[in-house]
């Protein structure tokens, strides 16, 4: 019942906030978001399962109820958490609360709707990470898009409509492709499947001989077809190059708190689903095509980093570097070793915190200066030392500096992928990302934060209540490196 309480409390909070007056909406939303935060915290502390539930690992807080019965399939309300989803749930609740707090300053119109949608988004995300029945899961998966669309389209920047529509249509088409892929897999198993429950499907698919050929194609072709469609679908969400172009647009146009959630949690849906579906259900295909997938991962890392180098907008820089960071996750997943998957899971978490922090700091600078362009400002450290200090800390976290969480994830991915089914050359090439990431972040920092103070736009010194929060978050991001012990032993 914990999970239901978690999702329900978020939904109720969303409803209350939607009806609240604009003046109190922000504070109210923050207060109400503490409920799911506390719940997930308690769940985390009492958590006693480990491993990937679909591979026979334990599951905690599980409920299964027959929901709808039709023809030969049944729909279950099946939710539960395991070693992969638990950290992501905590990530979601923490980031949502922080995003709400960070929205107090920049969001000054239609507040109640904004915070209501953010909480609604959280409900969707929690559902995605907990649902274990495909039908339920897919509903949550799609539900996430709706509040995100409005959050970008209403409170976004000048090209918000373009960005919002691009985001919605692109990811929605991807979902449909993925849907076809999954159903192909289910139908190919014939009457042995009685419910589209993920645990059952995963078990059956992995049993040899259960998948039958369809329309004259051999079972292996069917598996490959299903794998490709699902991979394409999730690749858009991650995003993997070349399906990434919605991301920079969405990030640049989205308001800061939404960027935080977009980079921090929404991207993880893609890798989470890849891990849940493709890599768990069809490991054979992964093995056969590991090199090809690794190429995608490596290209994402290097190409994303190089693109970040070419950007002038701080938010775009962070957006492209997200593409690069998510490439590491894919690399760790495709290696499919203990350290690889553990590192990938941890990298999801650490990227969630660090990219969120990064977007927030850029947001603070934008609030003060009304510009995000590298050429428009220099020497900001002189005027906003704490913000810049956090910026520097976050940037070094992004660069994967040891003792910060970014390092733990990356180095585990590298250690896991070097000696695996894919050639170590992929790992070696992907590692070069750590040089490029240092290049563009340090370069951008040198030009904007340091040197003599100069600003093209108006600047006034105002009290900045939210920076105190940022300090705490900074500590949290930096030191979450040590959580790695926990995570990698649970995966």
């Amino acid at each position, binding site marked *: 019942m914990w999970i239901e309480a978690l999702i329900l409390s978020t939904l109720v909070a969303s409803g209350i906030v939607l009806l609240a007056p604009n003046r109190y909406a922000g504070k109210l939303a923050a207060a109400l978001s503490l409920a799911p935060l506390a719940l997930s915290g308690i769940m985390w502390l009492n958590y006693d399962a480990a491993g990937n539930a679909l591979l026979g690992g334990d599951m905690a807080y599980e409920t299964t109820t027959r929901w709808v019965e039709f023809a030969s399939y049944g729909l279950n309300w099946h939710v539960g958490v395991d070693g992969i989803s638990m950290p992501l749930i905590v990530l979601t609740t923490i980031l949502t609360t922080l995003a709400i707090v960070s929205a107090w300053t920049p969001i000054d119109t239609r507040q109640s709707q904004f915070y209501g949608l953010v909480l609604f988004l959280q409900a969707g995300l929690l559902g995605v990470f907990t649902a274990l029945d495909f039908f339920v899961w897919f509903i949550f998966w799609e539900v996430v898009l709706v509040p995100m669309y409005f959050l970008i389209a209403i409170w976004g920047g000048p090209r918000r409509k373009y960005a919002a529509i*691009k985001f919605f*249509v*692109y990811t929605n088409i991807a979902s449909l492709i993925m849907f076809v892929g999954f159903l192909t897999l289910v139908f190919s198993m014939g009457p042995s499947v009685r419910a589209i429950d993920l645990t059952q499907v995963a078990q059956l698919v992995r049993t040899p001989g259960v998948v039958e050929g369809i329309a004259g194609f051999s079972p292996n072709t069917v598996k490959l077809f299903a794998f490709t469609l699902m991979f394409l679908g999730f690749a858009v969400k991650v995003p993997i*190059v*070349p399906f*990434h*172009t*919605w991301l920079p647009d969405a990030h640049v146009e989205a308001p800061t708190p939404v960027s935080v959630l977009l980079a921090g949690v929404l991207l993880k849906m893609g890798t989470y689903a890849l891990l849940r579906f493709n890599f768990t259900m069809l490991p054979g295909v992964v093995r056969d095509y590991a090199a090809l997938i690794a190429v995608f991962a490596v290209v994402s890392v290097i*190409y994303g980093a*190089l*693109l970040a*180098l*070419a*950007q002038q907008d701080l938010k775009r820089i962070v957006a492209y570097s997200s593409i690069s960071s998510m490439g590491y996750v894919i690399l760790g997943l495709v290696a499919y*070793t*203990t*350290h690889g998957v*553990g590192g990938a899971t941890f990298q999801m978490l650490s990227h969630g915190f660090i990219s969120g922090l990064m977007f927030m700091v850029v947001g603070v600078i934008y609030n003060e200066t009304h510009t995000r362009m590298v050429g428009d400002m220099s*020497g900001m*450290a*002189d005027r906003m030392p704490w913000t810049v200090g956090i910026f*520097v800390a976050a940037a*070094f976290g992004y*660069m994967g*500096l*040891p*003792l910060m969480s970014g*390092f*733990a994830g990356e*180095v*585990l991915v*590298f*250690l896991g992928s*070097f*000696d695996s089914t894919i050639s*170590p*050359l992929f*790992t*070696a090439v992907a*590692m*070069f990302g*750590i*040089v490029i990431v*240092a*290049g563009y972040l*340090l*370069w951008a*920092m*040198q030009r904007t*934060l*340091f*040197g*003599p*103070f100069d600003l093209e736009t108006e600047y006034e010194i105002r009290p900045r209540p939210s920076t105190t929060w940022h300090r705490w978050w900074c500590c949290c991001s930096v030191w979450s490196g*040590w959580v*790695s*012990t926990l995570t*990698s*032993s649970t995966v």
Partner: protein
Amino acid sequence: MAGIYDLVPAIAALPLASFVIALFAGKDLPKKGALPGILATAGSLALSLAVAVTVFTTGEGFNQNLYTFVAGQDTFSLHLGVLIDPLSALMLVIVSLIATLVHVFSLGYMNDEGETGLPRYYAGLGLFTFSMLSFVFANNILMAFMFFELVGLCSYLLIGFWFREAGPPSAAKKAFLVTRFGDYFFLVGVVAIFATFGTGAFAGSESFPHLAELALEGEYDVNTFFGLGEQAWFTVLGLLVLGGVMGKSAQFPFHTWLPDAMEGPTPVSALIHAATMVAAGVFLVARMYGFYALSPTALAIIALVGGFTALFAATMGVVKQELKQVLAYSTISQYGYMMLALGSGGYVAAVFHLTTHAVFKALLFLGAGSVIIAMHHNENMWDMGGLKDKMPVTYWTFLSGSLALAGIVPFAGFWSKDEVLYEALIHGLGTEGGLGIVLLAAYAMGLLAVFFTGFYTFRMVYLTFHGEPRSDIARDPEPVRWNVKGPLAVLGVLAATVGFINMVPVKKVTGLEIDYLHQFLDMAPEAYLTNVHHYTELLETDAFAGIHAATPLGEVGTVAASAAVSLGLALAGVLAARQLYNAPQPVEHTDRLGRVKTILMHNYYQDEYQVWLARDVTVPFAGVLDTFDQGIVDGVVNGASSVSRTAGRQVRKLQTGVVTNYAALLTLGLVLLLAAFAVVGGWV
């Protein structure tokens, strides 16, 4: 007596505590965080000394994993741990000593000069010391890498301390980027070592150097990659790690960051160059010397890079105008000597030179700092002159350091540099094949560099302290206080005397057992496999490095000849400098070099091509990719949407809004349908 070893983590934890205190409470403390820093580093020094004494008296070490941060199920785990053997004990003493003195000196250089942002400064120093100390006692290569990188971060923060100016942030960025580039290879090496051996431990029978040794003897199976044989693969591993070493220790071609790093406060330069960041690279090679001793190719490359860097940097030092620039190039050059020693099998010589260099280079930088205070932060030597009488303490200590740097007997640098060259010579002569030739070539370059070292060192001394004052400030320099003079005095005495710990030539001539450093380093517990005789054994095995010594003039004769040659060259350099620059109004004789000077002043255009690579190759390439991304990749996405929009726009024109048209279409459809039925149904 093993109790002291339980306190080893505290050696690093104390500076970490001072970092936290300075960062969060430094503003409210007297001296803005300097006092906790001094106390902490002094505490570390005391503990390090206790540890070193314990190692010395008991001959026991300490090698333990303290914390497992990733527990691998059926694969390797990752640990943080402590390894105390003579090498790390010695290095701990050096680092904490220099750090303490630098903290004290900073009182004079930063506090008395009224700098702002001091809590940040002292926090940086604390973190720097913490990282370096942790790096030194790391017991596995991953932990070493972690703190190696952190050292890079601290150098970034401290070099860029004066962030309001344009220069320091740029220099800081360059320092971090260039060393990161080296660290990339290091990280690949670390990961590959874990993949190959399943462990990253430095010492013991389960350590990767020992496993590599066993693998070469065919007693142990390891994974190699890319179809390479074991020997070749280990060479590749060694070279990958060497990338990080060359970045941090500023070896050619990664040396370009170091002169720029002079933008940082002078005490920081002292810390970086003498004991921490730059020393980290060489220390790493010494730490895993058992691994390098297996690969002749890697040793040859180390020696060649070292010898070349020693000469190459020394030539640039000859023309520099600024005090700290000369010292910067001398640092690069001196670390070249250490690499030369390591490459030619002189493990003790390298550690010895590391020790003496730490002392005299810290001294020279702090002395330069004292001069800079006196000169109101004007660093140009042509504006100085005649400071000898105005600041005697600085002069005499600086002179002590300069004599050590130039390698004049009996100052510290003579003994260590002589031993480096001696090792290179005898091993070059004794080793057969390509490696021997390479060692001799490296020796020749190192020897030539001795002359240049003597020359630029005393050019610096004469220009700064001798002659007539050449500017108003030099006529009336600002006095410095005890907190500047104290550290100088300590280091001045040490620079004169620290060489006595390992007087190999005297030992060879007289037969007295006074090579204490050699004995100390040899005291590492047998089980660790990090002692000198184990390394010598490895080096002399033909299946591994196959380095042998040859002394054509007999042992005494060779050592005497080698010492005489290097001392003679150093003296020649000193005398040449005296001839040219010891004048009341010296002139810039280097102008006579003509175009050569231009090349030297531009540092052989090394910076230019690296900046060109970054700014004119990588960034435009990224720009092209961005255009490609926006145009082609995103173009396809937007193209898909425009195609559907255009199609929709065309099709909707059917919807005219005129009922007549709809009715016509309806009728037409009906007629066509009927016609179709007629044809298919066979009515026609």
